[in-house]
């Protein structure tokens, strides 16, 4: 993994200055295709009813369900049961659409990493997380660490920021409740936070391709699919072509590995309304159901797609992630048709100071955490290394 590879080179930095210092070239992008087109909204019209949307979804899902049910029971029904005397339908068994078919990923010969981060939470007022964010940027851009680590960091071919770049605090609604004359000269809290984000994105995009997904607290539309953040907010960083502002949900094929992920609104919504406790479990369940956000538009705001539902999985991804979970989690699941999916629950960086490194070659995921030191850290508690 990342650390072992990093440790292989000799330690050279606790020594007098040497004449030459190694510089590593960032691994070039071999193949990248952004497949998020279905999530882009063109002309917006909100004149359809919910029933219309559900009907579309049903129609679209029907073929998969039919084939699954036939495989399982040999009947066309997806819900197995019997009609009772009082007109009620007793359900005996049900079956889901299951995993979609998956195209195999082309094997890679060298280790390549994709860094997944979410919940930077800028503008939240927490100084501790700012140092962590800076350390993260420094590791990825190759400033921190010994030569081995810098060499490994050069193999990070992409960084995906999965939402909640701004903190919940920047969404203060005071300006709506207060009188105009009181709030006339005050700036929205998100302005400072966006400036800070712009600087961070500038540092990152000067060194690595970055994909920025909006999240629940970011300045874009509320309903899913969230449209990309506008480039006018990042005047410094958009100068680089390595910066890409993308939708939420986001899917792309990076170096032959298909990624699909959200900023976490779908999973947290299910978490809120069901008894499932583990975010990773919920993630797996959505994959089994073959729908990214089944609770939309019921309890989760979603654009009324009445022609096609883009949240149904057309094919199974290799890496399926969701951002802003309370803790890190990753799991590999196997499907009935030889599908292999790596599920990653990307934790909220502002609270956990942890990001995820996905190895594209081995489809393994390693958490990477950052810490400084504080006055109260007696037993290395901040590092998580305590007893």
């Amino acid at each position, binding site marked *: 993994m990342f650390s072992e590879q990093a440790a292989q080179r000799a330690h050279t930095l606790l020594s007098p200055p040497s004449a030459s210092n190694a510089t590593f070239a960032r691994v070039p992008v071999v193949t990248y295709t952004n497949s998020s087109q279905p999530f882009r909204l063109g002309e917006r019209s909100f004149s359809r009813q919910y029933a219309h949307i559900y009907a579309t979804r049903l129609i679209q899902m029907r073929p998969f369900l039919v084939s699954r049910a036939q495989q399982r029971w040999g009947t066309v029904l997806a819900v197995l049961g019997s009609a009772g005397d009082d007109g009620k339908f007793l359900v005996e068994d049900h079956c889901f659409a299951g995993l979609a078919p998956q195209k195999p990923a082309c094997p890679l010969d060298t280790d390549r990493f994709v860094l997944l981060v979410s919940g930077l939470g800028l503008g939240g007022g927490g100084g501790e997380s700012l140092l962590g964010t800076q350390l993260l940027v420094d590791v990825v851009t190759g400033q921190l660490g010994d030569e081995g680590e810098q060499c490994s960091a050069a193999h990070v071919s992409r960084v995906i920021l999965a939402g909640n770049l701004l903190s919940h605090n920047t969404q203060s609604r005071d300006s709506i409740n207060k009188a105009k004359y009181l709030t006339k000269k005050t700036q929205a809290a998100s302005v400072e936070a966006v400036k800070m984000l712009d600087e961070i994105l500038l540092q990152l995009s000067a060194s690595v391709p970055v994909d920025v997904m909006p999240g629940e607290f970011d300045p874009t539309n509320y309903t899913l699919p969230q449209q990309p953040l506008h480039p006018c907010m990042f005047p410094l960083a958009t100068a680089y072509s390595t910066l890409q502002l993308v939708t939420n949900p986001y899917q792309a094929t990076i170096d032959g590995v298909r990624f699909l992920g959200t900023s976490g609104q779908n999973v947290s919504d299910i978490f809120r309304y069901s008894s499932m406790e583990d975010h990773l479990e919920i993630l797996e369940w959505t994959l089994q159901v073959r729908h990214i956000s089944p609770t939309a538009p019921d309890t989760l705001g979603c654009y009324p797609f009445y022609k096609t539902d883009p949240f149904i999985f057309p094919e199974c991804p290799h890496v399926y992630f969701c951002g802003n979970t309370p803790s*890190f989690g990753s799991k590999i699941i196997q499907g009935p048709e030889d599908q292999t999916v790596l599920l990653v629950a990307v934790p909220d960086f502002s609270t956990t100071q942890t990001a995820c490194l996905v190895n594209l070659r081995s489809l393994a995921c390693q958490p990477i955490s950052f810490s400084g030191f504080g006055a109260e850290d007696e037993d290395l508690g901040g590092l998580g290394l305590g007893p």
Partner: protein
Amino acid sequence: MRACDWGFGPSEGGGGLDPSACSRMGLVQWRRSPLLVPQAGRGLLPHRQIQVTYKWLSYTLGVHVNQAKQMLYDYVERKRKENSGAQLHVTYLVSGSLIQNGHSCHKVAVVREDKLEAVKSKLAVTASVHVYSIQKAMLKDSGPLFNTDYDILKSNLQNCSKFSAIQCAAAVPRAPAESSSSEKLEQSDPPVSPEMQASDELTTNGHGPPVPKQSSQQPKGIMGMFASKAASKAQDANKETKTEAKEVMNASSVGPKAPGKGNVISNFFGKAAMNKLKVNLDSEQEVKEEKKVEQPPLSVTEPKLAAPVDLKKSSKKAEPVRMQQKEKKRRKQMELSDDETKETENMKKKRRRIKLPESDSSEDEVIPDSPGAYEAESPSPPPPSPSPEPVLKTEPEPPPVKGSDGENKRKRKRVLKSKTFTDEEGCMVTEKVYESESCTDSEEELKMKTSSVHRPPAMAVKKEPKEERKGPKKGTAAMGKANRQVAITGFFQRK
């Protein structure tokens, strides 16, 4: 041992400070004396900062980050061997992996020296250890380290990955055609911007609103001031080669440029100086020409001046700068208008009626209001000599365009309308569609605003005999209201 013994000098280490600059900053003495103490005015560090992080050292000396880390380590070792009694506290960066919750977690941490061994022992695999920072006092928490890093990063945003160990070939700036022009109009110019970039922005902004234009012109004015100050001797030499007539008013107009601060201010604000400038319109033009001739040789001196050292001089030059600034602007304005007397007339009016809704007046308005702004601004933007010309050429375009627009063009507005139709299934569908609609109401108001105030409103209405509707009356009413509103807010501001 001197700074160049580190292995960098004029032949190596492109992008850093030259050795003479290092010695100016006291870097030569870095290894001899325990200079890691705040010493205002001299010494190694700015007076508020008391930690030296590897990043700060890397940007300041212009060296690879790894070399900076090694330098810090070497310094610590030597100091401790010498045992000079100076207390040095060191923080290290440790990274490696350990097993946690069934995962192999990679940890990256900044730790104090006393905790270093403990942390290392807990890691299963240690990937890297290096010095993060050195400071004199024991740090309670890592907050100040972040502040130091952030400060040095802010002043080097444009080349933030220059000294890093990873270079990305794909990270190329987008071609200007790709990025929309609106992005160029943003005001937050990074302090270290290449010369051509500044001039490019000026030319693209020529058609934009006047506000960004003036902000990028102001730094030019400051640098122009520096240029004239530094080469004032060259100026004197040039003067002597001109004819007598020019020399006479050179004395009158260059007089304010002289370093005598007190004279400058009183001359600047005194009406006598103003009248002098106005009367000598022709002479102003020639002085401007002379200035243009001077600028090419002056531009050679620019790179030398654009060093941070000039920051200190800027406070002294702030006031003469304003004077210079205003002169330059006035000269440019004069060159533009064909009718010079009209320009003077307008200028006179501008002095008295600051609230004219004219683009030119807004430039003048800002200058007396913000003397402190120049000191705050960073002085490094250069005065590219070709750029005044393109700017001058583009300046005449907005005012005439505005005038003709208001009078001749018929505006088309996009209006949201509901359309009801029957679709293929026989269902009635109502949809909201944007349609362009020609609208003359807004055109009236626009025209009212752009006409200058001393023309009575009735005149403007008469100029459009065809549109005698409620429209013009609305327009006048609106304009009257607009004027009145301006007065009202003025009343509040004075409060």
